[in-house]
């Protein structure tokens, strides 16, 4: 049998294709696909720091579904999403629009506004831990100077979640502003000129031109914010001490996972928490994709 040259070309191309995706797929198979399966298996064992793990069936999941801390962490996480995502979206749109006006000195304002985006979240957490300190923090000192009493930002169970959210928003807006600014710069000036001729004021221009044309970028900001907030960890971990009166009220699913898997070394249980997080994020993602069609306008 003689192969047609075209066929041989195809084969060569396929071979080259496989060879070039091979490094990626070796990595994906080991670190993602195998790891995913391994995690599912681990979640069915009592794996801990040392010793050989035993298979325990669904015991970890039963324990998880009975653990009050799981529900509290879930509730806290949903609250973080409900508080942080709208604030990040609103503030980042606002800041991006302000920076897009193009007043003199915009370059400096822009550089300053972007600083938190390149700052370590760990450092952001420590900076705010100090600012929000009950006894010696600058913020309570400011409140006291105004005649308002001190607030236990980081240890009052009623306040701590909002304080953490505030820090997250402060650190999270910056990055999204960069994304939105690019989106704004993609909107043609001609739309605004046409609107001005029709007599539309800036508010109307914002409502009927900026918002719809920016909606793909806003959608992107929303999706990434939801994913980021869902996995909120760094700030809580560094800002709230363990066994403080603020611990339970600020604990997120990701910190819950970290505490169980890598502080208490109940890795099997931790693996089960990770599976629960996976299922939740999957649901949220599907929901988003469905809702997206309702309000995001694409050009094509």
């Amino acid at each position, binding site marked *: 049998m003689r192969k047609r040259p075209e066929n041989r070309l*195809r084969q060569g*191309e*396929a071979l*080259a*294709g496989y060879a*070039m*995706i091979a*490094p*990626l*797929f070796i*990595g*994906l198979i*080991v*670190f993602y696909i195998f*790891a995913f399966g*391994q995690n599912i298996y*681990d979640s069915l064992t009592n*794996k801990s720091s040392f010793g050989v793990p035993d298979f325990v069936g669904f015991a970890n999941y039963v324990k998880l579904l009975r653990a009050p801390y799981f529900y509290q962490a879930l509730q806290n996480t949903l609250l973080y999403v409900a508080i942080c995502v709208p604030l990040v979206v609103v503030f980042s749109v606002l800041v991006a629009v*302000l920076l897009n006006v193009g*007043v003199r*000195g*915009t370059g400096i304002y822009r550089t*300053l*506004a*972007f*600083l938190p985006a390149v*700052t*370590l*979240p*760990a*450092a*952001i957490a*420590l*900076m*705010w*831990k*100090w*600012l929000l*300190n009950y006894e*010696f923090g*600058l913020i309570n*000192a400011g409140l*006291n100077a105004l005649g308002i009493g001190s607030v236990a930002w980081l240890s009052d169970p009623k306040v701590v979640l909002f304080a953490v959210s505030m820090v997250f928003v402060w650190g999270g807006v910056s*990055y999204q502003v*960069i994304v939105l600014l690019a*989106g704004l710069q993609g909107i043609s000036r001609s739309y605004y000129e046409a609107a001005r001729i029709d007599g539309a004021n800036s508010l109307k221009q914002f409502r009927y031109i900026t918002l719809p044309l920016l909606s*793909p970028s806003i959608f*992107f900001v929303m999706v990434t914010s939801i994913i980021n907030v*869902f*996995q909120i960890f*760094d700030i809580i*971990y560094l800002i709230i001490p363990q066994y403080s009166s603020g611990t339970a009220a600020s604990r997120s699913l*990701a910190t819950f996972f970290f505490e169980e898997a*890598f502080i208490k070394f109940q890795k099997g249980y*931790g693996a089960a928490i*990770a*599976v629960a*997080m996976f299922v939740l994020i*999957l649901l949220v993602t599907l929901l988003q994709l469905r809702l997206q069609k309702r309000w995001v306008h*694409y050009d094509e």
Partner: protein
Amino acid sequence: MMSKAERLRSRTWPTHLALVILSLVTLAPFVWMLLTSFKTFEESVRMPPAILPEAWQLENYRIVLGKFPFHMFYWNTFAMMGMTVLGQLIVCSMAGYAFARLQFPAKEFLFTLCLALLMVPGQIFLVPHYDIMVRLKLNDTITALWLPKIFSAFGTFMLRQFFQGLPRSLDEAAMIDGSGYFGIYARILLPLVKPALVSLAILTALAAFKDLMWPLIVNNAMDKMTLSAGLAMLIGEHTTIYPQVMAGSALAVWPMILLFLMFQKHFIEGIALTGIK
């Protein structure tokens, strides 16, 4: 014409005001961090607080640098960032090229699989990743910090988009000149997607720099920690001496801020690119 410009200027003051407030809110925590880092413990716990330190002394920096191997934190962080970037650029650009330009069986399936991984939260891989590192005897090494991070579905997706945007005629011309597929990729197309590579490099470097959980988990020895994990060590057992904590934080944040100021344009373009569908 003049009057229009003047009118414009007079209407910009609310924008200026808003931007000034915004800048203050952004800058204040950094300024307070720096001011505190020069204070003594006694000064830092005085209420109401004095804004400026009585004497600008470097004692806190001296203590923090003496207690913690910051030179190793810097080295580990930048080595980790460099290797993550390099690894991701190689692995993802090759795969991105193959997915964009080459035909092979099961391509769609493999690409979808790749995309599906984007949806999975990272926590689900951490326990197994840790065990893989232990099995490979790689924990407490710099390799452990970057190895699992170079296989990026996101990077592949992003670069594939860019390869797709290049005209087909380039490949055909090169093919006639006798280039193989790898040659086309390496010599013809790769230089053309340089802006995308720079963007990916910056995004990857930034994400690697910021990550806390993985470095905290995989490396236990103090001299194998990144800046991010090193900062978690600053909260001491006996007292929390905030001037020292702030000095440590200041030592951890300046390198990336400096890089940002130097390459601001690239940073902004890199981040902006991710938002474009």
